[in-house]
């Protein structure tokens, strides 16, 4: 019976998204309640599905009753379960957070549309994770890309529109690369169903066409995951989007690019040509780590710092994946979890600060830690795990990445990982200095003005994310229930 939850997790959010405009004419709070209920349903069914995966490793579902190569099959295995749990929980938290935020920051007419797009984004990502067929994956890639372009531009400012247009251009080009890659793979093998495709590719010699197809698709997902040379769109898009949206974008959407890369590298290619791809992409990841952190150091708009830091943190994840070793992959997946929890908590806190205090620049945020103590505790926990201090999940992922790099004998990669985390620590301390250890400049807005009470709707999601990153921080072993079999499964696919 629980196999049906596989399809319902995807279709329920998308169907509710179509219902919202109809209902919101009479009942103006429809948007929020429908969105939260749909995402609650998806989160519940995600838990049930992960339970199913724990029991028997891989759940498959033939949509429409047709056998796989002819019909479409959606499946969930260990890696999918890890990403599905992350996606559904984060979307639910952000949906609940955005109730008050949206009323304060968006015009009334756009609020139902915000929730429609939020549901489409969440449903698109969940569908992307479950897709078993490359073209199905491409369509879900389109769904969550289109909705994230719109969500970036929803606040209507000229700057955010320009940033979102640049994001749209690069996203469309990356989706065309994926389509071209699919075309090449289809012409070589004749099927779109991934396991069969992988089997057929395994037989063919490693010709130029396969290398081209992989390069195209990996570059496309590289654009989506904002890997170093292809990350130009990210700082503008993530910093100008409304805060709950940038939390989802930084926390989840760029992880979908990473998931896509995993799917291509391990499921379709089976790790073939990993030596040459690995070398190139780990070089790009290494530059991403350093350049992203340096740019983050230079900025003083709080959301711009976090946007650049996302570019650098994604470098860690991709470095981990392209090491093709147990510890590398474990470190990469752990960094996905750590960055998702920490970065979304940080963006949500920044959202509260900006909407309550109205400041974005660090100078204006002097000493705010003392006036919003409860919020700032979670802010510091998230910063600590971003900077990978001991007893945080960031430390465990940094440890495994170093181990993976040293195991392959590439000391310079381990050095880059450590240098990157040192630079991350620098800008985290820079923020902490301003927030806790600086007296508010007297001239700005009456220093000691106490800010309006932060509503529980906003505090609960931040609290859950902060507590989650603390729990996973102290016991990273908890997440290994999913990560260990996932990584072993992936390595098993490498022929």
């Amino acid at each position: 019976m629980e196999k049906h939850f596989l399809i319902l997790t995807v279709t329920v959010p998308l169907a509710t998204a179509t219902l919202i405009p109809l209902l919101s004419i009479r009942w103006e709070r429809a948007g929020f309640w429908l969105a939260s209920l749909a995402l609650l349903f998806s989160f519940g069914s995600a838990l049930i599905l992960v339970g199913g995966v724990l029991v028997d490793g891989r759940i498959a579902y033939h949509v429409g009753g047709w056998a796989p190569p002819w019909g479409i099959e959606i499946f969930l295995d260990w890696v999918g379960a890890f990403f599905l749990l992350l996606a559904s929980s984060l979307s639910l938290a952000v949906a609940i957070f955005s109730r008050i935020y949206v009323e304060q920051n968006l015009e009334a007419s756009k609020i139902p549309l915000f929730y429609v797009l939020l549901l489409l984004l969440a449903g698109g990502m969940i569908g992307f994770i479950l897709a078993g067929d490359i073209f199905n994956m491409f369509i879900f890639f389109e769904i969550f890309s289109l909705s994230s372009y719109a969500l970036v531009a929803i606040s209507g400012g000229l700057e955010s529109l320009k940033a979102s247009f640049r994001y749209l251009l690069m996203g469309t080009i990356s989706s065309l690369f994926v389509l071209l890659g699919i075309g090449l793979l289809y012409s070589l093998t004749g099927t779109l169903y991934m396991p069969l495709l992988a089997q057929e590719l395994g037989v063919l010699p490693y010709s130029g066409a396969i290398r081209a197809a992989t390069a195209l698709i990996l570059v496309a997902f590289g654009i989506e995951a904002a890997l170093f040379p292809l990350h130009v769109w990210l700082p503008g898009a993530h910093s100008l989007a409304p805060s709950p949206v940038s939390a989802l974008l930084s926390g989840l959407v760029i992880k979908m690019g990473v998931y896509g890369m995993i799917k291509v590298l391990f499921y379709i290619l089976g790790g073939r040509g990993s030596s040459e791809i690995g070398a190139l992409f780990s070089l790009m990841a290494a530059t991403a780590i350093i350049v992203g952190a340096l740019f983050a150091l230079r900025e003083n708009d709080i959301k711009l710092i976090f946007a650049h830091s996302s570019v650098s943190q994604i470098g860690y994840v991709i470095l981990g994946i392209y090491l093709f070793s147990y510890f590398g992959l474990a470190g990469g997946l752990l960094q996905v979890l750590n960055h998702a929890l920490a970065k979304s908590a940080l963006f949500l806190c920044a959202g509260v600060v900006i909407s309550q205090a109205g400041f974005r620049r660090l100078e204006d945020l002097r000493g705010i830690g003392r006036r919003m103590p409860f919020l700032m505790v979670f802010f510091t926990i998230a910063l600590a795990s971003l900077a990978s201090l001991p007893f945080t999940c960031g430390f465990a992922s940094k440890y495994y990445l170093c181990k993976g790099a040293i195991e392959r004998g590439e000391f310079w990669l381990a050095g880059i990982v450590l240098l990157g985390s040192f630079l991350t620590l620098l800008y985290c301390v820079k923020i902490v200095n301003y927030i806790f250890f600086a007296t508010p400049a007297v001239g700005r807005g009456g220093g000691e003005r106490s800010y309006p009470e932060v509503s529980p709707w906003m505090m609960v999601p931040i609290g859950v994310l902060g507590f989650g990153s603390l729990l996973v921080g102290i016991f990273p072993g908890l997440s290994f229930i999913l990560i260990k079999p996932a990584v072993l499964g992936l390595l098993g696919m490498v022929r």
Partner: protein
Amino acid sequence: MKKLGAIFLLSLCGLFLLAAVTSLPRMGDPENPTNSLVVPRYLEKGLRETGCRNTVTAILLSYRGYDTMMEMVVLFTALAAALAILGRESLETCCETFVLPSLLVRMVVVIFVPLFLAFALYVITHGFTTSGGGFQGGVIVATTVIIYTLVFGLDEMVKRISPGVRMVLESSAILSFMLVGLLGIALGGNFLITTTPTLGLSDFLRRAILLLLEVSIGLASGAVIISLFCLLKKVERG
């Protein structure tokens, strides 16, 4: 400078692509893997299993119905996104200074619009046997309405097809797919199984469901495209 950079990047990428393309199997010969692995079953059993003579519609609706549902979701997302950016045209559209074209043009349009609509309806409903289909029919409906709007003005069209109706139509495709899917689960099979023969539904009922889906796709895509056009056509007041 930007142009030179672009040309250099493109020539690099071009060489890479052309090299890849040349090593692909020859175009069009029957022994290609594309013609031998998955497709033969569609061509041989397609007619019997889905009752559609046009294999493309068969695949579209029955074998890969999930993809079509998601394709309609993409259309809906595009509309929602455009609305989020431009904001839906206000119900009482502005009285823009619109000059009616000459009588001759209006007469031609009045005669042809019903004909085009009939043709569009034909294209939607005969997707099974001829090379038509829900989506193409929907676009033709949208084009006819756009011609009507260009000739008779936005107010005239909005009076005929109000935003409320369009909003319902836009969501109709996805909801009908959802209903058909849930019906499949209710009858004990998988999602969207009702579009396949395995459940032992009577042949007539299955074809009726396929037709329902086809028509809902047509109407929905038509409504979405009309709304997109109204969004862009709306002239900012003042």
